[in-house]
């Protein structure tokens, strides 16, 4: 590889054999990430992938960049420490629904509210894959699994709503085999702060087809609402469906254009800077809002840390360790 040759997807692939199950959605996500990095001008040496534990967390081993496969649920904490001392690095957190929303829920909350400048990829397959198929915090009620033989009785969480509640400033959603996933990743990378992306991911072994409604090549488009800032929320193969705000319930509802007098001008217009809209469309029945749900710039944690250090240095006026030892009262014994 010469200095100036543009990097390709291959440059970002490590020499390690990829060991996910055949047909796993993680392959497609890996490919999307490896395609995207050259697009955004990433370099191998400045890119770091940090993961927790789970199937998704094997991800860093397959990237020919720096990588840290850490412990269950804690990847955001490692990433925060790294980013604080090395703001020059491009840090990606790779996590799953169990890793982020069960054992690591606390850390996801805090990395998002601090707005640490990194990308947070949550692979959501609604199941614990690595431990052989137990229900996860995103599993539907009634999910049959080895640990819920009579069906799960836990209410599932909606990851993007958790992110919104935590104060995340960039929230997006995509799915594993989507061609548009790369665009979502590029947008996340451009954002300064914590970019949260939920990626719906199929687990062919323990939860096969869980997102078929959304991702099926034929029927899927009827259930995919790809968001565009400033555009009416219109979807369906012929754009015949849309979202409007029911003024009585203040709920977003799916409507068919031309029915009940609904026209395009009645539809909600997507405003990525509006938290309320993001909340309303986060959990639509039978339809997934995809793309960027919410984006609003704000103070970036690692930058604020640097600014405080600079301010402290200016205030100290060159005071060194010797001056520190002499702070307050000292006396001399002769």
């Amino acid at each position: 590889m010469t200095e100036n040759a543009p990097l390709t997807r291959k440059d970002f692939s490590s020499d390690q054999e990829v060991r996910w199950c055949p047909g796993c959605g993680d392959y497609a996500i890996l490919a999307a990430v490896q395609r995207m990095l050259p697009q955004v001008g990433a370099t191998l040496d400045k890119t770091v992938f940090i993961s927790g534990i789970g199937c998704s967390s094997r991800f860093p081993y397959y990237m020919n960049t720096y990588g840290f496969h850490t412990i269950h649920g804690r990847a955001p904490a490692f990433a925060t420490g790294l980013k604080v001392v090395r703001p020059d690095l491009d840090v990606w957190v790779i996590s799953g629904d169990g890793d982020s929303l069960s054992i690591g829920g606390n850390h996801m909350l805090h990395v998002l509210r601090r707005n640490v400048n990194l990308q947070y990829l949550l692979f959501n397959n609604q199941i614990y894959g690595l431990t052989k198929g137990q229900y996860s915090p995103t599993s539907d009620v009634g999910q049959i699994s080895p640990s819920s033989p009579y069906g799960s009785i836990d209410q599932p969480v909606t990851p993007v709503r958790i992110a919104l509640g935590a104060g995340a400033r960039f929230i997006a959603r995509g799915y594993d085999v989507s061609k548009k996933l790369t665009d979502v990743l590029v947008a996340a990378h451009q954002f300064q702060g914590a970019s949260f992306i939920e990626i719906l991911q199929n687990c062919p072994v323990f939860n096969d087809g869980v997102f078929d409604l959304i991702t099926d090549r034929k029927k899927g488009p009827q259930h995919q609402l790809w968001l565009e800032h400033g555009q009416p929320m219109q979807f369906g193969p012929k754009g015949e469906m849309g979202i409007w705000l029911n003024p009585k319930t203040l709920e977003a509802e799916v409507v068919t254009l031309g029915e009940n007098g609904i026209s395009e001008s009645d539809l909600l217009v997507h405003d990525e800077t509006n938290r309320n809209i993001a909340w309303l469309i986060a959990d639509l029945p039978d339809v997934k809002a995809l793309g960027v749900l919410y984006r609003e710039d704000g103070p970036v944690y690692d930058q604020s840390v640097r600014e405080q250090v600079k301010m402290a240095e200016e205030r100290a006026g060159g005071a060194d360790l010797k001056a520190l030892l002499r702070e307050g009262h000292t006396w001399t014994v002769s």
Partner: protein
Amino acid sequence: MSDVEKANGSASELPREMLDSVVIRFAGDSGDGMQLTGMQFTTATALMGNDLATFPDFPAEIRAPAGTTYGVSGFQIHFADHDILTPGDEPDVLVAMNPAALKVNLNELKRGGLLVVNTGAFTKGNLKKAGYDTNPLEDGSTDPYRLLDLDITKLALNAVAELGLGAKDAGRTKNMWTLGLMFWLFGRDRQSTIDWLQKKFAKKPDIAQANVLALNAGHIYGESAEMPSTIGVYQVPSAELEPGEYRNIDGNQALAWGLATGGSLASLPIFYGSYPITPASSLLHNLAKLKHLGVTTFQAEDEIAAVCAAIGASFGGAVGVTGTSGPGVALKGEAIGLAIATELPLIVCDVQRGGPSTGLPTKTEQSDLFQAVWGRNGDAPLVVLAAATPGDCFHVAIQAVRIATQFMTPVVLLSDGYIANGAEPWKLPDIDALEPFPVEFHTDPEGFFPFQRDPKTLARVWPKPGTPGLEHRIGGLEKNQHSGHISYDPANHHAMVKLRAQKVANVAEVLPEASLELGETGGDVLVVGWGSTYGSIRQAVQHSLSKGAKVAHLHLRSIWPLPRGLENLLKSFDKVLIAELNDGQLLKLLRAELLTDAIGHQKIAGQPFRVSELVELIESHLPSGTDTRPSAVA
């Protein structure tokens, strides 16, 4: 005697009786400001050139119900004209600001000791809350002591009456009034406290003025009031300390400054991740002020995030440090294991407190030794160092940074509540004379793999992200000892476990050899200690030595690995006593590692050793015929 003349400089003053050392305990309700009072007395005493040691003892509750015995807060200071190592056993002087404080502390006051009592707080209600059926000031309970009973509440209120403050603010000045009186009794200068008050209350000038008025009034009261004939004024001449520049320092402050200095000597930034926990929080507070000295602090969402962020920082090429107490170390265990597996530098400061579980948050104990050495899943060796005194924390912190970065290993640094909060005069080290140990990151891509090692130390290389050509992945899965790739190979795992253990064992090569603090090899009794018991044990052994006993003191500064030459040293004594503030953890460790047939001495009371109890312990183990009859212990 010229000192008397000096002390007697003012004609209106009484001649001062000379004392070589005094122990004063200030005790009151946790809202009475006893810690502040004690610290101000400490500063003034240090400025007088005495050697000193302090022991704050306060309840876990921020404001326990007023007047109760469990809400009593105490501060003990021992100061002398000679080198001292502990805050003293029984106080010579007890200041009791309310009945509860008297109830908790009176039995420890020396017979004939001076008892200063605020009668203003001896109301029926307060007596009842303290569990007194009769007023102890009237029923003969205080007869064995020299009593100075004053209505300090009223005297302080009168002193500040002219300012027209509210009753609450005016009432709060009684601690300064008391301090003024104590300054007079022991001939301390008020100026340092006046300066401090004016700075502290710069934005509330009336409060500053009230406190200064109360302080002066207490002093004037001493000068002018008719005192009982048993009350005199005292002089404790300055100690002959080694020449140099001194300051007071507590353990957590010294630890913070040592970490900053260690980072500077390693030419690396320090990243400190921590979650508030008693008694380690002030370490975070101290470090948070050092942003201008290459220290970044991160108040994490929990203990686990604190250590994980520190490891993330180490991965990025900084010195990752986390600090906590025992319960926090328990939470950090898995992450520390990751730092061991990935062979990254990490320093874990454990400021121990009483356990198990929440235990005794504000009381001292040495019961995290096992947790530090073995408290992780798998065979997970790391280095364990222990600080001996508040000032020693500075030097141990530097050593921890050196070992962590040179051996690519986590280091647990054990301190405890006693040295974290205790203060002592500290001779300022010559920063320029400290040997730098600048870290060199690996940069050469030629033949690089992330777990290539120094053949001598076995430390792996430290490549940091951002270095072209060294891209690599690390993690907690077992790795091939050559390539660093994930490996489940049985023989490789066996080799890696042994290799990690050997690397930590190699640290002994850079640690000082085992040596005696006091005494000669081959004696009758060796007292072995570690951590904050250093001062008490040393003083007890010193006493027994002065009485002709063949006794010695050995202090362990590293618990893991143990220092070279320890086994032979231990074997040369007839009896080995291991004194520690836990249920025999070092005892079991030394028995397991060296087959040392040692005798344990345990105190698990949340309190440090008294010198006198250790002297008795030594006596009881000396061969018969050794005459070291107890006498006053300095």
